[in-house]
């Protein structure tokens, strides 16, 4: 299936741990994003990469570090996890010059 896929779907971890979320898209897109959806379902962009280059970096704590090894992959590494990091993280992709953005199924991160 052509899609944006994220792993894992659920992640439960203790405060202070470091964790990573992986994202892959096989849509041939050149731009990928991370969005955060909080407990009130509010969606906000965190990062955007175009052709492996960081192009959008919203005011996100530097404990969050995205990495894009190639156009099809965008990973999110989070250091020293805090309770407030609990949220659903969505990866998305789009093609430069086109408007449609496609979202993955999300990773529900719970920090205890």
């Amino acid at each position, binding site marked *: 299936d052509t899609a944006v896929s994220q792993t894992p779907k659920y992640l439960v971890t203790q405060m202070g741990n470091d964790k990573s979320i992986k994202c892959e898209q096989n849509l041939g897109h050149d731009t990928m*994003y991370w969005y955060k959806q909080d407990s009130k*379902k509010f969606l906000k962009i965190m990062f955007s990469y175009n052709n492996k280059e960081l192009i959008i970096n919203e005011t996100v704590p530097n404990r969050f570090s995205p990495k894009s090894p190639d156009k099809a992959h965008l990973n999110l590494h989070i250091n020293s996890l805090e309770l407030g990091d609990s949220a659903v993280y969505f990866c998305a992709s789009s093609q430069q010059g086109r*408007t449609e*953005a496609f*979202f993955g199924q999300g990773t529900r991160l719970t920090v205890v």
Partner: protein
Amino acid sequence: QQQVKQSPQSLIVQKGGISIINCAYENTAFDYFPWYQQFPGKGPALLIAIRPDVSEKKEGRFTISFNKSAKQFSLHIMDSQPGDSATYFCAASRVIKAAGNKLTFGGGTRVLVKP
């Protein structure tokens, strides 16, 4: 500062009725206005979108109305069905070729269609 404001937060409609969700934006540089549908446990899925040079766009039972002077746009779901029960998000962006499509979302509207 919330750049896209969405109302209502929740909506209950009878099967066959019309669901109307409204959004207002502040940034006049926005040039793309999509609506996303999200089911529980799933990611947002693009439903329909409009550009500011058009006042209305219809796709099946879904219609976007756009009022550029008022900086408002709305989603109408005609003949609402129980399967339409989901959370709907409006969004806005300024599509910059080299910078992708940074979506600014409204707060979401939870729609429940009663059979």
